């Protein structure tokens, strides 16, 4: 500990602290621009100059290490003179166009200029003008306003992992720019808007939409991935205008992924369903809630009575709230059915028979910093979990070693020290090889049920992964979305569990959606032999209730899911959006609130239950889904639908104060495993692209224009392409048992040989169905 005196206040700070750290500790504000607690120290803005005893010159607080007995004055005449001197320099070339600048009112330069700037400038020459750069559809630029603090440069390099911005040229001609006309394509790019202390980088979708002081700031939770990022949703006249991160060091720190930040555009899209609608023949009639609900209840009751409860089921979105999922399953069970599921992209449900709780990450997200070994199995990690990957990236800088077992070798922008790249059908064999390697190395026996899977000999890559895990002090093994959607997901889980147990690793499932954990806790899965999602979608039931589900895009079955639902006699659709597909398959559409217009709860991958309230009034006649389900329960004369608020519903599911929540377990003891099924032909590796995960994101135009929003193509390694006689750029017809899609073949050596990567969750590929299937490719 070091003694320091700041502005007359004595305090002790940890060794290695800077004057800025010490000042923060006593609450002495030192003006600054380039300093940011999450970024490296640049010391280039010089705004934080302070007076230090015995120092001949003012020193930058951000970069000056505290020495024992140091005396610092942050507001002395000398300090303020230096700060005002710097402010004058910052302002001479700054346009001072605050009235037309989007940053006005939330601009650090504007704020500090009030305290440190003069009322008129001594600089009377022409000001510098800098041409704007096109950074893509998300970040708008006004580079003339840039003060060269390089926060954005350091962010792309240090946090996002790729130096997409740099400072080119020298001196007064310096410009922040992307590398030769490129755009900034990071999935975390929006954070540079928050970081920019002036109006040089602003939000393109939000441009000129509102002034900061017109906006109400309300807390919420992101519905797009399993991390549960905390949001500040900014609302004007009940319209969501912008989303910013709510700092939570345990979850999203001070960052947001672009998906969390810009998805709000989907909430305000033209295809929002705002009135209840009933189908009459082939046409749709708007109606009132009373009529729609009575129609839905009456018809549902009649169809269930006629066809039997087992011919009725519910398909629920995995980003529905705990309250919605709980009431939906209660309604299904009240009507005598057990056909309910929210895991629409899952294909192997054999784990359900031996599951002891909801699969979860197995550790708090904040403890990723302490890991020194991590094996990620079956995951498009960076695009599936942008901020989780960011945490792993930071940990990797401090010595965390990461391994991957996955058919593609996408660049996670962090060092991957060991890798296996099996075809989808070889995933089980790959994992079994790693299991054998760790068991051999530790001389431990493998559970008898798994020995059948162990290979006779194992590849060097498996040994490398095993060695990496075993050399660790604190290790973790995670299953990604691809593994959980795999046709042998349960076996993969069981094998990973065994590897974790032998290596002493923490073991977890990352989860693909906001309520991947909460859905289990709410009981939105079959419990007494009912049909799971795959069963409900492979053959038509007589009636369905859908909650925010677009079957062809949100399920593993693709087009076949749409056909299955379309084959029902009666479909009640609770949905926030209207679309041709939904109109074609539904009989009544009830407009329900997206997350911004309802109260609810998500349980994140680390088992953290986070409740939120509505941040805006429901659009049109939209109603929160939990209220709609409650009234439907009443109309169907079911017991236990007398809730007055969503908290009461939640109380029936979980204890909000517990962390982690109860009933979490990844253990699959007693599972009957299945061996690898050898496959002939090219196997499809299907990702769910980052901007196709759910119905809101798919309707956010700016995200769709981003590089990651590009239409699917057929990505093949050069070797695979040669073996098929294809060339990059060829138009190809991809065919599966289910259907076909026309795509462009593109070379991508990150895809395992013998595989083709074709994205799902997109209308052009929905006809292909199954996420992992044998595909034939023909040139057309």
């Amino acid at each position, binding site marked *: 500990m070091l003694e320091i005196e700041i502005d007359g206040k004595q305090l002790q700070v940890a060794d290695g602290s800077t004057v800025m750290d010490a000042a923060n500790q006593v609450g002495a504000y030192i003006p600054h621009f380039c300093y940011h607690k999450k970024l490296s120290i640049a*010391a*280039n803005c010089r*705004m934080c100059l302070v007076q230090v005893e015995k120092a001949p*010159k003012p020193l930058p607080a951000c970069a000056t290490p505290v020495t024992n007995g140091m005396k610092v004055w942050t507001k002395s005449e000398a300090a303020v003179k230096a700060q005002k001197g*710097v402010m004058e320099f910052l302002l001479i070339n700054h346009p001072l166009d605050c009235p037309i600048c989007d940053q006005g009112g939330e601009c650090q330069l504007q704020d500090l200029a009030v305290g440190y700037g003069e009322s008129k400038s001594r600089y009377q020459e022409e000001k510098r003008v800098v041409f704007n750069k096109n950074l893509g559809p998300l970040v708008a630029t006004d580079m003339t306003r840039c003060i060269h603090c390089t926060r954005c440069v350091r962010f792309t390099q240090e946090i996002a992992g790729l130096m997409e911005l740099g400072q080119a040229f020298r*001196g*007064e*001609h310096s410009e922040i720019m992307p590398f030769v006309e490129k755009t900034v394509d990071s999935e975390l790019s929006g954070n540079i808007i928050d970081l920019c202390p002036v109006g040089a980088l602003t939000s393109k979708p939000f441009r000129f939409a509102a002034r900061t002081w017109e906006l109400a700031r309300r807390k919420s939770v992101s519905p797009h991935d399993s991390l549960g990022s905390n949001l500040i949703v900014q609302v004007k006249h009940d319209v969501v205008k912008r989303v910013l991160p709510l700092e939570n060091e345990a979850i999203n720190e001070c960052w947001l992924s672009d998906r969390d930040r810009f998805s709000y555009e989907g909430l305000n899209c033209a295809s929002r369903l705002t009135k209840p609608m009933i189908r009459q023949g082939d046409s749709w009639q708007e109606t009132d809630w009373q009529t729609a609900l009575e129609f839905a209840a009456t018809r549902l009751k009649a169809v269930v009575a006629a066809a039997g409860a087992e011919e009725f089921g519910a398909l629920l979105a995995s980003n529905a709230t705990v309250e919605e999922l709980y009431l939906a399953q209660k309604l299904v069970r009240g009507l005598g059915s057990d056909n309910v599921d929210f895991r629409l992209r899952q294909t192997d449900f054999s784990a359900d028979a031996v599951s002891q709780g909801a699969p979860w990450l197995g550790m708090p997200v904040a403890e990723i910093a302490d890991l020194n070994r991590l094996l990620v199995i079956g995951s498009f990690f960076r695009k599936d979990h942008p901020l989780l990957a960011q945490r792993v990236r930071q940990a990797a800088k401090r010595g965390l070693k990461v391994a991957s077992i996955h058919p593609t070798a996408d660049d996670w922008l962090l060092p991957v020290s060991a890798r296996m790249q099996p075809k989808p059908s070889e995933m089980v064999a790959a994992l079994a090889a790693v299991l054998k390697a760790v068991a051999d190395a530790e001389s431990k026996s493998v559970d008898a049920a798994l020995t059948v899977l162990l290979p006779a000999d194992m590849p060097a890559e498996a040994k490398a992964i095993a060695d990496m895990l075993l050399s660790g002090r604190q290790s973790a093994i995670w299953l990604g979305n691809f593994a959980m959607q795999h046709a042998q997901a349960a076996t993969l889980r069981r094998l990973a569990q065994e590897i974790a147990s032998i290596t002493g690793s923490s073991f977890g499932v990352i989860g693909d959606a906001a309520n991947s954990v909460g859905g289990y806790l709410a009981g939105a899965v079959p419990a007494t032999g009912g049909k799971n999602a795959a069963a409900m979608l492979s053959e038509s039931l007589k009636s369905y209730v859908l909650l925010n589900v677009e079957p062809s895009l949100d399920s593993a079955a693709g087009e076949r899911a749409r056909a299955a639902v379309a084959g029902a006699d009666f479909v009640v659709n609770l949905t926030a959006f209207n679309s041709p597909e939904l109109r074609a398959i539904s009989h009544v559409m009830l407009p329900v609130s997206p997350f911004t217009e309802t109260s609810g709860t998500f349980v994140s991958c680390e088992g953290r239950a986070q409740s939120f309230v509505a941040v805006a009034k429901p659009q049109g006649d939209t109603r929160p889904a939990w209220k709609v389900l409650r009234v439907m329960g009443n109309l169907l004369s079911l017991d236990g639908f007398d809730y007055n608020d969503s908290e009461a519903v939640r109380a029936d599911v979980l204890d909000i104060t517990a962390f982690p929540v109860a009933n979490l377990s990844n253990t699959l003891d007693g599972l009957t495993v299945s061996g690898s099924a050898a496959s002939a032909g090219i196997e499809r590796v299907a990702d769910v692209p980052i901007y196709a995960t759910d119905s809101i994101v798919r309707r956010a135009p700016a995200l769709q224009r981003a590089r990651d929003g590009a239409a699917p193509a057929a990505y093949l390694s050069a070797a695979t392409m040669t073996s098929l006689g294809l060339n990059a750029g060829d138009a190809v017809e991809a065919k599966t048992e289910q259907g076909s899609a026309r795509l462009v073949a593109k070379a991508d050596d990150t895809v395992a040989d013998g595989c083709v990567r074709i994205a799902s969750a997109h209308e052009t590929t929905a006809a292909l169905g199954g996420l992992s299937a044998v595909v034939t490719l023909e040139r057309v």
Partner: protein
Amino acid sequence: MSARNLILADLDGDRTWRLQDYLARGGYAALKKIIAESTPPADIIAEVKASVLRGRGGAGFPTGLKWSFMPRSFPGAKYLACNSDEGEPGTFKDRDILRYNPHSVIEGMIIAAYAMGCERGYNYIHGEIFEVYDRFEEALAEARAAGLLGDKILGSDFSFDLFAHHGYGAYICGEETALLESIEGKKGQPRFKPPFPASYGLYGKPTTINNTETFASVPFILRDGGETFLNYGKPNNGGTKLFSISGHVNRPGNYEIELGTPFSELLEMAGGMRGGRKLKGVIPGGSSSPVVPADIMMDCTMDYDSISKAGSMLGSGAVIVMDETTCMVRALERLSYFYFEESCGQCTPCREGTGWLYRVVHRIEHGLGRPDDLDLLNSVTTNIMGRTICALGDAASMPVQSFVKHFGDEFAYHIEHKTCLVPDDVQREGSKIYVGPSC
């Protein structure tokens, strides 16, 4: 006190840069002696300390002391860098050392590496003297072939390899940490210090950076003794130094003299003032050092302490001599433009301030000056000085402050009369080059 050649000794042949020639001049004797006797590194550093050799790049920091900062027992890589990024207007001594006596630098670096336990060295050569880079590469090849450089030097256990690296002409890369960034392949921008290079230098490893001339002085010190070197100069200002004399003298060029030699002697060596005209002012240590008026300069001796007492700096030893035909406003305008163009743009005061200074001086020179411009120049320079990461901010400010201080009447005349105090035709006659109308 007079001319004495240690670094430039016996450079009379046509191929003085060849190894053979250098060996004939007694080159590599110091290194051979060290290797043969396995001289303890501490003794070498003590010898350099005894010589009171001060850094020849401009700052004048005692070299022996700098070397002693290197954590010799630090495990892992340590680096040595030679700063030949001679970009300051008026300075051209390192170019001639590398051109005519490159092996003195190589030998100096090998000895330094031996003393500090460095295994790799880089000589960062200014981008605008490419033929010197080529010649240095040739010299390196000769040294390697002779077993003087590389693995197991002269059959000992000591290995050291040295590489030439050429910059692209940015003045800022002469700042030692910007130079390291540039070697690392990054944009040449100074680093904030601390940490200093001795603890966190090239690739994050302990690194020592010295000027070309500093290294070139080392072989002599080790061969003939630090005491001998010191005695050529005066106390606290050991040895000889090269001065690059330019401007209004009859024989501009590099002159190696003992430190402490009177300026008047140096001026005489350079052939005296051109056309017998009167001396007006001298920039004694490269363009960033404050200008010294003639009468003060004529009383100075050429060493760190004397020039410092005169309110300037010995700097790199680039002596810019200006006679009575010089318009001091025009001279300052040129210097300010240089610093405006060469600021790296990292810190606010220098990025914004150097342009501002240039524009104000420019408008004074061009008849658009305002009565309060001199106060403005003083105020802006005060706001730049001492508030930036590196010394470029100071380097840009010192000429402005000193020109305004010593030649304020010329500036005032410009502002009032919108023309030079020194008539254009006199300027033209003095410099023998075309001088456009100033106003």
